[in-house]
């Protein structure tokens, strides 16, 4: 349950500033690492700034969502939600410059299928990468398997993610049972769903418990439809006497709605510019990529030359 979960203990933060600080730290850590490794000819401008990282992050998150939505067989919503949460948590403590998002997003999806018990074999999974040849899919699979354990490590092995979908169902059941004033709660479902999908693309999952997100979704959609649900909170949830909690809850809901409003899809030109910068950074600064391919040194296993790997771009994903 959420109240005893690792999500509540370790992955719910108090404010946006805290999140921003963590991301800034990750960015700085990467820069320091490169400086320490003594590479010459490195200027500060060749690194990504925070807002550039944000743009790229949003872009890849969008790609992840599209990948999951186009997935065959159909991925349940909880799997999608978990994958996006892993993606978000990973890049809270690591910089995009160090781990390329296009492979991390695939690993997040793969791991999420496993954790949420959505049984997909690895070949089936990479079979969803439609632009690749089977050999290319193989290569992607190898990369996925290579980086899976570091991803889990960076998530601090906290793999259970509580998404707001089931709380939403629970709240709808409760409303139908105990709140007869609302005639048709089912009508709220569609817009609440959209609210939740939008919320996964924001930091809401890292700041608020999933039940609060679900409640905000329902209240939002009801106010959109012009129905008032204030009395649900006071009567059914027993908050009539507890003004303080009530006001705090309204406060959180307001914050959440602001977060959603602030979200904007990144512009394509910006994305391209930053992407090129990212590629350059990865080409120069990722010694770990080349080191991990241990069997080059072996000489026994003669697979095709790894240099082809870099040619694979994002377009191949969709």
């Amino acid at each position, binding site marked *: *349950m*959420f*109240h*005893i979960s690792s999500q*509540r203990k370790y992955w719910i933060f108090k404010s946006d500033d805290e999140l921003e600080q963590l991301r800034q730290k990750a960015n700085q850590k990467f820069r320091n690492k490169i400086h320490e490794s003594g590479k010459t000819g490195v200027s500060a401008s060749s690194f990504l700034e925070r807002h550039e990282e944000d743009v790229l992050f949003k872009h890849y998150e969008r790609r992840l969502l599209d990948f999951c939505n186009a997935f065959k067989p159909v991925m349940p919503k909880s799997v999608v939600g978990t994958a996006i949460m892993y993606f978000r948590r990973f890049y809270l403590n690591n910089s995009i410059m160090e781990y390329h998002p296009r492979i991390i997003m695939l690993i997040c999806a793969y791991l999420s299928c496993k954790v949420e018990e959505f049984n997909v074999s690895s070949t089936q999974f990479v079979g969803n990468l439609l632009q690749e040849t089977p050999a290319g899919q193989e290569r992607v699979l190898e990369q996925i398997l290579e980086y899976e354990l570091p991803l889990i490590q960076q998530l601090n092995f906290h793999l259970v993610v*509580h998404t707001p979908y*089931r*709380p*939403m*169902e*629970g*709240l*709808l*059941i*409760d409303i*139908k*049972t105990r709140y007869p004033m609302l005639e048709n709660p089912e009508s709220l479902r569609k817009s609440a769903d959209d609210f939740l999908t939008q919320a996964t693309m924001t930091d809401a999952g890292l700041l608020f*418990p*999933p*039940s*609060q997100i*679900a*409640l905000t979704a329902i209240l939002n959609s009801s106010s959109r439809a012009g129905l008032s649900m204030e009395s649900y909170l006071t009567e*059914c*949830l*027993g*908050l009539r006497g507890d003004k*303080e*909690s009530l006001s*705090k*809850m309204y406060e*959180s809901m307001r914050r959440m709605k602001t977060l959603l409003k602030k979200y904007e899809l990144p512009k394509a030109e910006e994305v391209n510019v930053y992407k090129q910068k990212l590629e350059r950074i990865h080409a120069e600064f990722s010694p770990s990529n080349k080191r991990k391919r241990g069997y080059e040194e072996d000489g026994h296993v003669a697979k095709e030359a790894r240099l082809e790997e870099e040619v694979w771009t994002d377009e191949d994903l969709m």
Partner: protein
Amino acid sequence: MDDQGCPRCKTTKYRNPSLKLMVNVCGHTLCENCVEMLFVRGSGNCVQCDTPLRKSNFRVQLFEDPTVDKEVEIRKKVLKIYNKRDVDFPSLREYNDYLEQVEDIVYNLTSNIDVENTKLRMEQYQRENRDVIQKNKAKLTREQEELEELLLLEQRDNEQRRLDVLQEEQRQLQAKRKNKQALLDELEQSRLPATILLAQHKVRAAQLETQIEQQKQVVKPTNIFSTGIHMRQTVSLQPVPRIEEVLYTYKPLHIEIYGPPVPELEQLGRLGYLNHVRAAMPQDTAGGYNSALACHRALQDAFSGLFPLKR
């Protein structure tokens, strides 16, 4: 298994698997032949460590590792001196400390650490506790004698039982033979027709059989329990020490949900929640599923963490 052969003649152990290894007080092994050889020449030094040895000090190796044998010997000697038992100590802690002392001494002597000091300590202990050691030795011998007596008694009883059984069998065999003989005699001499005689004989044989069966059933009453305590012997036990502690009172587990209370699983139907959940199909109920489970889980998730934390 082989212990890599005898260090002196090196080959013989492989060639002759039945050859025994002997261990001496310094912890090194020698095969039987080499022991003979060594003492024929009159010189008594160990091959590896050059400590002076006596032939009587060699014992057949019981354990694979010769150091274990060495330790066993040392332990026997030490325990001859340190023979206090747990009843000699006022508290468990002191007994354990004493045992640890003993182990330290054995360890030191086995690994040849600090041998001088350890021997001095042993002698000191011996002097101080001379009478306790004597008493315990006497106790030990007495106990051993008692045990041996019991063993002897048991053995004698077993013998006796065996003899009894044999005798019984003999008697029964004889009785049967007599019966047959009687039949033959009667057939010869008596005037009655053969069939009647045969019938009589059969009856008598049957009687004999039942007699034998009955005797087998009779269990000799015993006057001793299997642990060796005589029946009707009162055993005095020490009174059980009373331990007084705070009485445990049950407090039900309380987990903070940070949200409104969730109704109990059994109440869900009555409260009307189940009307809004998909009903369980027959295939689902076969595995033990019912719709209340899914409903309860959804409600738990919905209410968990709903209220803000009170800072």
